C-alpha cells in the first residue's frame, strides 16, 4: 500500500494551503537547479534543511528517504572524481582525483539534497489529492489534474490486483526460480494484472458516472487562503529571492 506518511501531521506547514506551498517550491527548485554557485546551493541546502526541520518529519522515515535519494549521488562520487579530467588533481593513495570532478559532485549533491529537503518540507506535507486540487486552482488544465489524481489512485488498484494474484500463485506452491515456468508465470501474472485493473477501472468509472460525474472533480474541502497563508508565501518567496540575489552581491 502506498502511504503518505509525511502528509500526516499538524504543524504550521501541514496546515498551509497547497497553493502557497507549490509556488515557492517551484521557485526554490528552479534557483537550486539552475545555480552553479556553491554559496547559493549551500545556503539553499541549509535553508531548506531548516524548513524541513520545522515541518517535524519522523526522523527514521526521513533518514530512509534521504538515503534512498543519495544512493544516486553516491554513484556520482564514485565516478566523477575519476573520470572528469582537468588539470588540477588531488593525490589519493595511488589515484589522482580530479578536483573539478569533486567540485561537480559536491555541487550536484548540494542541489539534490536542497531540492529534496524543499519537496519534503513543502510538498510532502500535503496529500497528493490537495496538491492536485491546488494545481488546478493555480491554473493547471483540468484534464491534467484529473490525470494526476487518477493515475495516483489507480496505482493502488493495480498494486492490489498484483498482490492478490501473486498471493494466489504462492498459495498454490509457486516458487520463483530461473526457469521457463517462472518466466511464463510472471508474464501471465503481469498480463492478468493489466486486464483485471482495466476491468476494475471500468467498473469504478461506471460507479462515478452513476453518481453524476461528468469530468470535473469537485473537492469537498475548498479552503480559503488565510492571512497566515499569504504571510507564509511572502516569507518563503522573499527567502528564495534573496537566495537568487546572492551572486549579485558577492
Amino acid at each position, binding site marked *: 500500500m502506498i502511504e503518505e506518511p509525511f502528509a500526516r501531521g499538524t504543524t504550521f506547514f501541514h496546515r498551509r494551503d497547497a497553493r502557497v506551498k507549490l509556488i515557492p517550491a517551484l521557485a526554490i527548485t528552479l534557483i537550486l537547479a539552475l545555480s552553479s554557485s556553491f554559496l547559493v546551493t549551500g545556503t539553499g541546502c541549509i535553508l531548506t534543511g531548516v524548513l524541513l526541520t520545522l515541518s517535524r518529519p519522523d526522523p527514521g522515515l526521513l533518514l530512509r528517504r534521504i538515503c534512498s535519494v543519495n544512493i544516486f549521488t553516491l554513484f556520482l562520487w564514485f565516478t566523477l572524481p575519476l573520470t572528469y579530467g582537468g588539470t588540477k588533481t588531488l593525490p589519493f593513495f595511488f589515484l589522482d582525483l580530479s578536483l573539478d570532478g569533486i567540485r561537480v559532485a559536491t555541487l550536484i549533491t548540494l542541489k539534490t539534497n536542497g531540492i529534496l529537503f524543499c519537496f519534503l518540507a513543502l510538498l510532502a506535507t500535503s496529500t497528493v489529492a490537495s496538491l492536485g486540487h491546488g494545481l488546478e486552482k493555480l491554473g493547471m488544465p483540468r484534464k491534467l489534474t484529473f490525470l494526476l489524481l487518477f493515475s495516483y489512485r489507480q496505482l493502488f488498484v493495480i498494486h492490489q490486483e498484483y498482490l492478490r494474484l501473486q498471493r494466489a500463485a504462492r498459495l498454490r506452491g509457486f516458487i520463483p526460480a530461473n526457469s521457463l515456468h517462472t518466466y511464463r508465470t510472471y508474464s501471465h501474472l503481469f498480463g492478468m494484472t493489466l486486464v483485471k485493473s482495466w476491468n476494475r477501472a471500468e467498473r*469504478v468509472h461506471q*460507479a462515478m458516472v452513476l*453518481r453524476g*460525474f461528468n469530468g470535473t472533480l469537485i473537492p469537498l474541502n475548498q479552503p480559503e487562503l488565510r492571512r497566515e497563508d499569504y504571510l507564509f508565501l511572502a516569507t518563503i518567496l522573499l527567502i528564495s529571492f534573496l537566495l537568487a540575489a546572492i551572486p549579485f552581491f558577492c
Partner: protein
Amino acid sequence: MITLPPLIELRNITYSCPGRTSPLLKEINFSSSKERIGLIGPNGCGKTTLFQIIMGLLTPDKGEVLLQGRIMKDEKDFRLLRRKLGFLFQNSDDQLFSPTVLEDVAFGPLNLGSSPEEAREISVRTLEGLGLKGFEERITHRLSGGEKKLVALATILSMQPDLLLLDEPSNNLDPETRERLIGILKDLDQAHIIISHDLDFLASTCSHLYTIEDQKLIRCKAKQIHSHDHIHPYGDHPHQHGT
C-alpha cells in the same frame, strides 16, 4: 383521475452479449413505482445486466427504458435518470474510490450541484442515518467488508434517489450486519429492487418476487414468500435454500 406514469418502465427490452448468438434477455416488459421487489435467478441469467440496462450503462439491442413516461434516448437523458435511481454494486470496492468515507459519500451531492457545505451536511446526515456516525474520516479501503457495504449504500442514499437497485447486497455479510441491512432497508422510504440468492433476505425486505427464466422476466405468483424456523448444523450462518 389522471394516473401518473410509473417511475421506471422497460418496454420490449432485448439484449444479447457481444459475441453470443442467442439473446440473454428477450422482450422484457416491466414497470415499477413504489414497490419493493426481489429478483432471483441462477447465475448468469442476466439480472445484473438488467440493472445495467436500466441505468444506461449498457445499451439494449431493442426496446426502451422510460423514466416517468419519458423515453431515455441518450447519455443526457440517463444523467437525469441516475439522479432518481441509485445502483448498489455487487462489489463495494468498485464503488468506493475516494480516500475518506466523507469524501466518498459527498461525491454524488457535489456532482449534483450541492455546495461543499451542503454536501458535507447531507453526507454526515446520511451516515448518521445508517448508524455510521464517526466514520467520516475513516479510510475507505481499510473498512471491513460489512462496513464497506454500508458506506457504499450511504454514497447512493446521499444522492436522495427514489428507487434503489441493489445487486446482491447481503453477499458475504455476517449475520449481524445482514440483520442490520434488513432493518435499514425496511426503514428506508425508497422503493427498491434487490437481486439476491438469499430467499430469507428477500422475504424480509420485499413484497414481490420476480425471476428471469428463458430470457424472460417473470413475476412469481404461484409462490408465496414466507419464512419458517428449522434446524440444521451451522444454521446460524447465512445460507441458501432451494426454492
